[in-house]
């Protein structure tokens, strides 16, 4: 039973969560609990607050990933101890475990470690001793070399606590893994946008993974992947309601054509690089340079496109300042003896930096600009389904629905499980509602 941040945020929420654990025990199960950090943004032990304590020392000095992991793991340790004590106040003995104490071994990538093995001997001892183990989500231990005492604490990155829950479920051959959150399960749309969006009773791993890939938060695909691999039933449930929730199943357990829902990403900035002015023999080098830079700085790309004379993609608005800093005024000389110098410009209007670079480069002669057309304030709205996107006419149905609703579509992309449209951010709500209504998703069960 894994409890997310909202389920452990307050004493009241923790009591409701603890009572669910007690109820499972009274039904004859041996529950193992995994908890997320206790703090939410702005609270004393929230990730942002903890990171702020490092940054305020000197914002220009980047903290070491190893030290960040040690610091961030405190949130889950605090949560596990408090949850275990809450259970004790209800008359049930419980023991808190760090990830490493629970036997979770990871690779050595701080901040985004992957679980390589679990040796849950301490948890089994705890269960046999009559305790309820309460394990810190999101963390494990990297053993750099055999015999190294204790190992290095690592964190599992996004969705880390969900992954802890699934992985422990697999290691313990659990009856089921239950992920508790503050919604009834996987819904056909964000209930803030579509109030009557129904909860899906079953959904496949692929659909959940695609929804997460497109930016919506449900259960993390890493958790679903582990559960599917080991054949452990996985449920998403609401701590605060008695709804039965959503079961995540393998594709072969839920065959057939259907629509899953409409999702939307966060805020994006779309960039389209015009290479028409570049020499044809230089275009591969220029495009390679753009993507190399995005890779090196860990920029997350959406809605990519590529053709002989241009390439483009959307980036999260939070990463846009970094992308702009990387590309604005960038100079790439190419061509050896027949040197051509390329100067990158972000947006239609050259900045002062670009103009000064141009002035400096002018004596070199052959200087060409690579201009990135910029569309700020957009988002991606996606229709997700199973064996549906290949149906003739689905593109027409989506684009005509949005056109009738006066929603401009700037670009599209699709995959086996989804069809996405880049739309102005101000139209997100309308676009989600229009597609949800057009495809009768309120009738989906």
């Amino acid at each position, binding site marked *: 039973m894994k409890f997310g941040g909202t389920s452990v945020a307050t004493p009241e929420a923790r009591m409701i969560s603890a009572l669910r654990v007690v109820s499972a025990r009274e*039904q*004859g*199960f*041996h529950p193992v609990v995994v908890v997320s950090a206790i703090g939410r943004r702005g609270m004393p032990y929230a990730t942002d607050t903890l990171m702020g304590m490092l940054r305020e020392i000197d914002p220009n000095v980047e903290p070491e990933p190893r030290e960040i992991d040690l610091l961030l793991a405190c949130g889950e340790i605090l949560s596990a101890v408090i949850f275990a004590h809450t259970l004790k106040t209800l008359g049930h003995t419980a023991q808190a475990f760090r990830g490493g104490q629970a036997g979770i071994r990871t690779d050595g990538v701080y901040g985004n470690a*992957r*679980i*390589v*093995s*679990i*040796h*849950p001997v301490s948890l*089994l001892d705890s269960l046999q001793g009559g305790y309820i183990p309460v394990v810190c989500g999101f963390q494990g231990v990297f053993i750099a070399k055999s015999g190294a005492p204790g190992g290095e604490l690592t964190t599992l990155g996004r*969705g880390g606590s969900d*992954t802890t829950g699934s*992985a422990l479920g*697999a*290691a*313990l*051959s659990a*009856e089921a893994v239950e992920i508790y959150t503050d919604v009834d399960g996987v819904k056909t749309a964000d209930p803030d946008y579509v109030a009557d969006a129904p909860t899906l009773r079953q959904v496949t791993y*692929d659909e959940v*993974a*695609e929804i*997460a*890939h497109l930016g919506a938060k449900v259960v993390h695909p*890493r958790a679903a*992947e*582990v559960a599917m691999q080991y054949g452990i039933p996985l449920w998403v449930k609401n701590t605060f309601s008695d709804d039965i929730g959503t079961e995540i199943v393998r594709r072969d357990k839920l065959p057939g054509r259907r629509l899953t829902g409409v999702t939307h990403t966060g805020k994006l900035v779309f960039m389209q690089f015009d290479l028409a002015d570049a020499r044809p023999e230089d275009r*591969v080098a220029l495009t*390679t340079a753009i*993507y*190399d830079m*995005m*890779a*090196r*700085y*860990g*920029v*997350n*790309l959406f809605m*990519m*496109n*590529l*053709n002989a004379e241009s390439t483009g993609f959307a980036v999260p608005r939070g990463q846009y300042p970094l992308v702009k800093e990387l590309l604005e005024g960038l100079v790439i000389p190419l061509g050896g003896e027949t040197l051509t110098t390329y100067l990158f410009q972000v947006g239609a209007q050259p900045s002062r930096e670009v103009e000064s670079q141009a002035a400096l480069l002018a004596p070199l002669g052959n200087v060409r600009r690579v201009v990135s057309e910029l569309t700020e304030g957009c988002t991606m709205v996606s229709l997700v389904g199973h064996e549906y996107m*290949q149906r*003739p*006419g689905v*593109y*027409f149905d989506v684009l*005509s629905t949005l*056109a009738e609703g006066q929603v*401009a*579509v700037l*670009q*599209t*992309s*699709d995959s*086996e*499980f*989804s069809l996405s449209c880049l739309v102005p951010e101000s139209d997100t709500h309308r676009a989600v509602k229009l597609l949800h209504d057009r495809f009768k998703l309120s009738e989906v069960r």
Partner: protein
Amino acid sequence: MERQHTSTQETGFEKKRGIGKIDVRTGYAQVLVSRLEGEIVQARLRLLEAIKDAQIGIDFLKLTPSGLSCLVAESDSEKISQALQGHPLRLQIHHDRSIVLVHAVNMRDEEGLIARIVQKVIESGAPIDHLGDMHDRVLLVVPGAHAEALVQVLETLKGNELAH
């Protein structure tokens, strides 16, 4: 209801980062439509309606300044020409296209991985007609004759933790 806990063995869990598998799907045609006349949004919709009426499934739709491009099954390429007859436009069909699928689990969590795969593909010099992505793979549309060479390049990257 009680259950015996027997799994005390160490167990391997998550899949490795980076490229895990490469597949190729053959038998597609690339459709390029340009010089559409009139208001572009409505012109594109008329085109897509004609394609729908002809019961042709399309993938990789991209909107271009004067039209659109998409991928259809090779067996539908003749059908799409007929469906678009009579529409004022310029139609080009590039036959023998393949989709190269580069599988990499949880790509979105490995920051920079998608960009790194695309960079390696472009660097290889393979002519890419289109590219796309989904939760566990990057999809590349290439001329059929170039698919095998591209696969060879990508094979050399398997097992590398490209995002780190």
